[in-house]
């Protein structure tokens, strides 16, 4: 019970609650000599009660006026959930469909800024599909802390790990704006892992990478990422939105000359992730339905017990104060009619 008031100075009104101690608030009836009347314990008790009623009524009103409330409380609970960082690819190709076209069905219906020119959308772009499914995903994960990072040519810090689902949804919705540049996945991964610094290790820690392409990672970054994944105990899920006709994660090179990170960045990125030593799962989604399946899997798998803090919002107690005061007022008012009339 952590009680607090909105306007502390209003509490000075509590002095008024002392008034009934000096005056019983009753009509005095004339008596020849008060010392003649024998003391009556019951009367004394009733008077005392009435005074206390008056004190409580005044105090109740003052506390109500001061805005008594219980401060926001947090309770630690154990539930099932995870800390998830959504790492979203904002490279320009995400604005194309799974068929590798602009959503209007024209092969290259783009202006200089990379924006789709026409409003009519015949097919969903990869970004739209991802956005729609991620929105549902976030809705289902009530206990999780979710953060959002994005990357294109460089990484963008979008939303810290938070339990505020509205904020996460606002960040996901903002990816409706045109995509940016190229795919620099190592910077994005570095930023995603940095979200877990200074966070307690509880439940599972997940980086959910949603991308439609890959890029070679340079040696320095590789080493750093290996170290960071170990240090922060992060699990990685990679949802690869495969465009029709483009190389996939699991494709083996047909020609040994094409067997390098430059020619097959997807395969090599996959190999690098496999070698990280931390749990890793890759999904290749070639259509919005496959993407849905991948997200459903994660939803099922990642439910380790987790400590989380349940917030109990601030509770206004002034209504209670006013009700008590009103009731006591009614009592005092009623008692007034029992007074001796002479």
């Amino acid at each position, binding site marked *: 019970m952590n009680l607090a008031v909105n306007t502390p100075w209003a509490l000075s009104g509590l002095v008024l609650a002392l008034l*009934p101690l000096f005056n019983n608030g009753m009509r005095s009836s004339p008596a020849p000599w008060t010392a003649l009347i024998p003391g009556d314990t019951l009367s004394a008790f009733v008077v005392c009660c009435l005074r206390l009623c008056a004190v409580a009524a005044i105090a109740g009103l003052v506390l109500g*006026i001061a805005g008594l409330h219980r401060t926001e409380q947090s309770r630690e609970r154990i539930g099932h959930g995870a800390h998830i960082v959504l790492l979203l690819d904002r490279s320009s190709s995400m604005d194309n469909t799974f068929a590798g076209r602009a959503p209007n069905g024209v092969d290259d219906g783009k202006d200089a800024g990379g924006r789709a020119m026409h409003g009519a959308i015949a097919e969903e772009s990869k970004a739209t599909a991802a956005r729609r499914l991620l929105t549902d995903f976030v809705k289902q994960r009530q206990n999780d802390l979710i953060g959002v990072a994005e990357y294109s040519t460089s990484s963008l*810090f979008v939303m810290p790990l938070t339990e505020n689902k509205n*904020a996460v949804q606002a960040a996901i*919705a903002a990816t409706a704006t045109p995509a940016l540049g190229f795919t620099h996945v190592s910077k994005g991964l570095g930023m995603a892992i940095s979200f877990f610094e200074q966070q307690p290790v509880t439940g599972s820690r997940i980086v959910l990478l949603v991308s439609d392409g890959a890029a070679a990672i340079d040696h320095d970054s590789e080493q750093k990422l290996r170290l960071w994944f170990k240090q922060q105990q992060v699990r990685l899920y990679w949802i690869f939105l495969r465009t029709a006709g483009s190389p996939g994660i699991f494709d083996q090179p047909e020609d040994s000359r094409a067997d390098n990170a430059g020619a097959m960045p997807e395969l090599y990125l996959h190999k690098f992730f496999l070698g990280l030593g931390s749990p890793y799962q890759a999904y290749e989604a070639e259509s919005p339905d496959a993407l849905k399946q991948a997200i459903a899997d994660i939803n099922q798998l990642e439910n380790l017990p987790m400590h989380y803090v349940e917030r109990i919002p601030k509770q206004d107690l002034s209504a209670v104060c006013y009700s008590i005061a*009103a009731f006591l*007022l009614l009592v005092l008012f009623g008692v007034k009619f029992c*007074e001796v009339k002479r």
Partner: protein
Amino acid sequence: MNHTLKDYRIGCLLLALIAMLVLFMYPNKQQKMPTYNYTFIVDITRSMNATDYQQDNQAVSRLNFVKQTLRELLQKLPCESKVGLGLFTERRSTLLFEPLEVCSAYTEIDTTISKIDWRMAWAADSNIAKGLLSTLEMLPKSESSVIFITDGQEAPPVNPNYQADFSSVKGQAKGMIIGVGGLQSVPIPKFDSQGKQTGFYNPDDVPHRSSFGQSNLDPSQIKGYNARNAPFGSEAATGNEHLTSLHETYLEKLGAESGLSYARLTDLQNLSQALQNPKLATEKVVQTDIRRQPALLALLLLSLVYLPKVYKFRRFFARERSLVPKL
């Protein structure tokens, strides 16, 4: 005497009870309050690293000053106001998140503002007019006012022949352009790939004019002009593009073309004043708690019932006086 006394006490209690009844029947009043919906688009190009603001006697960069001011502004915005955040570099901007209610998402907005970094830039040019245009086109129907925060430093400078045409968005968008920076030219810090400062940009590091398309000058005026091979002539351009200052007249011009108003950022006070522009505010009906007023009345009436009797005091003091031995 007794009857009047009786009447006043019962009357007071009755009135107090009526006041409480009113309190429970009309606890709230509908009140109009201005609320705001801003989408801040922050320029993160390199010129924003120039240090020409002072804070606690320390030079701070334009970007840091903007971040600090926005975070302070966030605390001052009334609840139910919304804030969205975006970044500008190159020729366009990106939205990090759509406007969020400030009171419920204060920590999230504050953290994200604090994490804005010039290294988030996905490309290095700084074409402000086009950026502003694409931002206004990107957020055309949103209720949010675009607050475009920039220093007006175009890099490379714009060729007057190829200026952004704001006629399509003029009058549709509401918002403001906030100019950042000092009016005196200062050098732009240069960083290496690890983020360490390695000095400042030299005149040789930056283009001093646009070399895109056709020159806006009369070809006969250009030395070494060749329509195909050297439309800008053979002379190397010189200029002060490696230095940066707030281009106020330019931003005012952009504001006039796009229908946005302009204000310069000097401190929190002036920013919040500029942003409290009634054009950007929407009146929202908010329920305000007015239970205090009847409660206060009831409190006064109740206190009146128990007010110490004055004549008792008088008698008490009179007795005191009589006890003082007379000399």
